[in-house]
Structures are given as C-alpha cells and as structure tokens.
C-alpha cells in the first residue's frame, strides 16, 4: 500500500502578494500595533534578560556592573539549578506521554461524527477551558492529604491515603498528571484535526481487505497521524517546560524543593530573592533549550513527509 500524504495546510506555498503603491503603507500601519506590542512585551524583555544576565546588581537594582559570564558559571556549579533542571525533565517526561495518550483516546472517540459527539467534544475541551487557577484549587481539594476526595475514596476501598502533594516523591508526578489533564482538550483538538485529514477511502479499502479496527489503527491511523503526533508531542513538551501556575498555587516549589522546576527557580530567584541577574541567566538557558526544541519542530514540519 502506497500513500502519498497530502501537504498540510501550513506548508502550502502562499501565492505571491504584490502591493500596489500606497497599499504597502496602509498594510504597514495595520501591523504596527501588533508588532509594537510584540516588540514591547516579548522582544524587548528577552533582550533585556540577555543583557542583565551578564551583570550584577545592587540591592534595588539601581546600579549594576558588567561581570561577563560569571552568572552562567555560577549557575552551572549550582546544585539547586541542576535539581530544578532534573525536576523539569521528570515533569515533562510524565506530562508528555500521559497527555498524548489521553488526548489520542479522546480524539479517537470524537473524530468521527455520531449522535451526541458535540457533548463529548465539549466535555473533553472543558479541561482546557478551565483557568489554571480554578483547576489548581479544585485539584487542591481533591488531593488534600487528609480530607481530600481521592484519599477518602482510597480509604473507602480499603487502601491507605497518600500524601499526594506533601511528599517529595508524589508531588511532582501528581502535578504532572493534573497538568496533563488540563491539556487533554487542546491535544484532542489538534489530534482530531489530524485524524480528519486521513482519507476515509483508506479505511474503506482496509475493511474490504478484511482488516479489523485494531489493524486499521496500527496500520492506517497511527502511521498517518504520526507527523501530527510528533508536532503535538513537541508542543506538549514546550508547554510543560514552562508550567507555572499550578505549581505556584499548589506546592510553591515544595516539599523539599521537589517541585521547584526550572521556571519556578527563575521566578523565585527573581521575584523572591531579588537576584534578577541570576534569574536572567537561568531564564536565558531555558530559552535556549526551548529555542532548540522549536527549531526541531520547524525543521521537521518544514519538510514534506512522504510514505512510500
């Protein structure tokens, strides 16, 4: 079986647009607010962080001196930094597969229309629509060490309650699971779009050849979905490396710093410890990792994918 995959919409070459005289200026004016906002709130702070990371500041940040790579050198020798990097990747390693599998299951359930599909699509997407703060508070009740719903349920079936958010072993995985839960809706939407791009004829042909739904999934769905899966996996990875709200609200980096992930370390060093220069160095390092992952994503999706 040989299938040539259609080009995905975002890789299609756009027709060349030519502006008439005067239109160019108008167009430029229209993009000015957007570009200005981006420059002001994204590009400028990023450049500022780069610049600051080569400095040391006094208490109030009113005077600073150039120190070159000192902050980076200190960072690489700082065990707290490496612990946070480790926690970040453990976190991502739990979030990505859980969210991907749950998202895929959800997407498979709602990809093809059936009566009531709208309800299920809404339900799955609901987790993404709930604001992080609300979700975190709800999960906080659910996971309360003594009176939480989950622990009472465990006790009701004869198991012992678990310190979900108060033990250094469980806190990070628990946060990862609730992060994955929150992202299921978004993942499901992307994967549903991917599923709907798979031509129906292939399934028809497969059925005529006598393939069961299990075979169809492994031979048609998964291979044809794999580019989308890869993209989604990268997106999940990128977002899980910058997860913040749920950690801030539920554990504040504890217990025993087990949930102090990279970005939380940056936050604490900057806004609690008033070491903006050192936090900037760590933020720049995180930025480079994210950049690398993003580049990987573009490289992969910038090319056409053929199956022969």
């Amino acid at each position, binding site marked *: 079986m040989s299938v040539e995959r259609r080009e995905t919409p975002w890789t299609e070459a756009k027709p060349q647009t030519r502006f008439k005289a005067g239109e160019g200026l108008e167009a430029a004016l229209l993009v000015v607010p957007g570009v200005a906002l981006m420059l002001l709130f994204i590009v400028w702070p990023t450049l500022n962080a780069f610049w600051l990371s080569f400095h*040391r*500041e*006094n*208490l*109030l*940040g*009113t*005077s600073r001196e150039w120190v070159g790579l000192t902050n980076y050198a200190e960072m690489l020798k700082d065990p707290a930094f490496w612990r946070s990097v480790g926690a970040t990747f453990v976190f991502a390693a739990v979030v990505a597969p859980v969210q991907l599998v749950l998202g895929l299951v959800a997407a498979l359930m709602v990809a093809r229309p059936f009566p009531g599909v709208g309800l299920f699509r809404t339900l799955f997407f609901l987790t993404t629509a709930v604001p992080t703060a609300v979700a975190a508070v709800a999960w*906080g009740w659910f996971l*309360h*060490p*003594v*009176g939480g719903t989950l622990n009472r349920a465990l006790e009701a079936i004869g198991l*012992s309650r678990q*310190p979900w*958010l*108060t033990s*250094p072993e469980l806190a990070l995985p628990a946060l990862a699971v609730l992060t994955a839960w929150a992202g299921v809706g978004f993942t499901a939407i992307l994967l549903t779009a991917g599923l709907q791009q798979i031509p129906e004829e292939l399934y028809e042909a497969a059925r005529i050849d006598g393939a069961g739904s299990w075979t169809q999934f492994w031979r048609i769905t998964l291979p044809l979905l794999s580019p989308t899966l890869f993209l989604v996996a990268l997106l999940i990875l990128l977002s899980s490396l910058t997860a913040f709200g749920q950690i801030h609200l539920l*554990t*504040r*980096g*504890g*217990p*025993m*710093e087990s949930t102090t992930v990279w970005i939380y370390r940056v936050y*604490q060093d900057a*806004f*609690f*410890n*008033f*070491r903006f220069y050192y936090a900037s160095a760590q933020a720049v390092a995180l930025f480079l990792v994210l950049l690398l992952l993003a580049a990987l994503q573009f490289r992969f999706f910038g090319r056409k994918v053929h199956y022969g």
Partner: protein
Amino acid sequence: MKRTFVLLALALGSLSLAQQRVTIDFWHSMGGVLGEATEALVKDFNASQNRITVRSQFVGSYDDGLNKLRAALQAGGQGRPNVIQVYDIGARFMADSGAVLPLEDLARANNFDLSQFVPQPRNYYSVDGKLYGLAFNSSNPILYFNAQALEQAGIPYRNTWSLADLEVAARKLTVRDASGKTTRYGLSIPIDSWFMEQFSYNSGQFFCNNENGRKARATEVTFNNPAAVAFLDTWARLVREGVAANTGRTWADSQSLFAQGNAAIAIYSTASLTGVLRQVGNRFPLRTAFYPYLRERNGTAIGGAAVYLIRGFGDEQNQASWEFIRYLLRPETQAKWIIGTGYFPVVRGVADLPAVRQAYVRQPNYTTALRQLETSKVNTASAGCLMGGFTEIRQIVQSAIEEAMRGKPAQQALDEAKQRADQVLARYNASVRQ
C-alpha cells in the same frame, strides 16, 4: 437655567477644592476581609477631612508589592507610592534600600510621643536604633484548641504550654482506629518557618546572630539553636508517629482539618482567628492559648506588616502621608481595625476603649494575642530576627522541616540548612555594600 448654574457652581467649587487637596498613593497587600477593612480605614480618613485624599491600591502579595516598588525605584522613582505596606521580614531590606523616610524622623518633627507605641512593634521595626515603619497589622502565633476534644480527653485548659506538655496532650488527643490508623490527629501545624522563628524567640533564643541582628547587622543564622532543634525534633517525630498531621505548606489545608474536628490542637497566627472561627461554626467550642516554649516562656515577636513612607516627595506630600499615619495611630482607628481582624493594637490605651472591651467580651479568644503581647518580655529575642534575604532563608528552613519529617535528625537538617542560609545572608549583605 437654574440647574445649569448650580452645576457650574458645584464644578467650580470642586475645582478650587482640588487645587488645595493633596493626593497621596498608598499600596497595600490586604486581600479579602482584611482588604475590606483596610479600604474602610482609607475611606474614613478621606471623609474625615478635606485636604488630603489617599488613593489606595491593592498590589497583590507583599512580594508583589515589593517588586512593584523595586521596579518604580529602578525607573528613577516614577510611579512610586507615598506609603507602602511591607511584611515584617522586609524590615532590614526597607532600611537598607535607602528609599524609606524613617517614621521616627517624622514623628519627632511633629512632636509625636513615641512612648505611645507598644514596645514590641516599635522594637521590631527599629533598625540600628531608629524606627522605620509603622506596625500596621500586627499578629503573633497562638495555639488553637478544640475545647470539646480537650474536655473529653480530660485535659484541663491552660493558658501556657511548654513543648513537653503540648506533646503529652497531643498524644492523648490522637484517636486511632482498630488498625492503628489515625482518625483524629492530636496536632496540626502548617509547614512554615515562622513557627520555628517564634519558638526560638519564645524560648529566649535568637534566630540570627548579633542578638537577632539587633546589636549589629546579622551575618549568620542561628536557627540551629537548641530550642529550634527541640521544636523541630518533636514536631517531626509526632508527624512520623501519626500524632501530628502533615498538611504541607498551605495553611488553609491545616485549617480545614482543624475546623472539621480532625485535628484537636493547631498552631496558626492570631490573624487566622476570624477565618478559623467562621470555618468551625458551631461544630465545637474553640479556645486559644499562648504559643509554646521550651523551658521558660520569654515572649513572641510580632508578625504581620508595617507601612513605610517612601522618600523623594515634597514636604507637602510627606506631611499628608504623616497625617494619614497619624490617623492610623489614633486609638479609635486602631479599635476599628483590630475588631474583627484579630490583629492587636500598636499604641497604648486601645484595649480600654468600650468598643474593644465589648468585642473582647463577645469573643474572648481575641484577647489571647494581646495578653501574650503584654506578658512577653521585652528583649532582643522577642524583638525578632532582623536580616536580609529572609524570604529565601524561610524557603530553606521549610525544606529542612520537610527533611526532618522524613526522618533526617532535626539537628542535622538545621545544621545543613544553616550552611545554605548563611550563603544567602552573605550575598545579601554584599549586595547592600555594593
């Protein structure tokens, strides 16, 4: 026609008023019930006279407020407030920042008698012998008892508890099912460095060197003192034995446990009293008592926050800020503030006001904090530790508490934490000299 004239007159009138009026900015970090009480004070002040308008703004947490202030000062002072509320442990930072107009200077210039202050809040916010901030919301930690559980266990209520007595009571109050699993904890304390600090002070020990940084700038932490070690050792042991609950760092998680009757004794701030009383409702009678100590009760330091005047404004503005501070210091204002919030007054003579007396009769638990304050010895231990980098150091102490709960000996956990904390303190002190 007539209406137009009236409107015009009103507009002109308000215009001329606006020219005389001085507007000052006040940043605070009081949310919820406390935020409402704060806004009410500001409103009352604005209504009480017609020369000064206080524009109050809730700036998020204390840390958020400090960050905003820092950003404003970095931008050359643009947008900085006249008055800002900063938490207790920011006292060293505020003095070192050079951005504060010491309250003592203003008080002296305005012939305000500083002896009107209750000594502990004054001592706490005095840096290098000078009073910098006005203790706005002052609290201390207290014991919370489920009085019904106490009675059922045959334990008589007492006002003062040593750590050893508290442990005995907690053990007695713990209820276990047939399999030995705890169904009601004897004790619940949120994981917070503040309780370690206060236990040190209340046992006459220091949390940082140079007598809590009161004789000279603190250069080392001393939270591995015998009292703190004993406290952590007991606390962690009780957690491991299932006598004390570990509900993590979130106070609310411990408070819900206590309010539902699943923990018989708890330790919170006096400022938690209103909220806890509301949560408990009619479930059981609640009683409060003084904070525990190791051998002899010395006295607790105050917690909470102070308001500071920021430098760089003209005399007229500073005078307006002082008027506002002066208003906050009035016994009637203090009375309004403390009734219902659980904080205690910072000037003398407030507790004797009829309104306060009535409130205290209605809910005697509110007097615990005040009586604890009045019976605390006034010395450098109960003045509280004054040092920089305190927020970061608290994180380190909290990690040490968590390590001890998992079985690391308390002494070792605190000794190791001291190494890290001393680095933070050294770095802070170096950044001040820069």
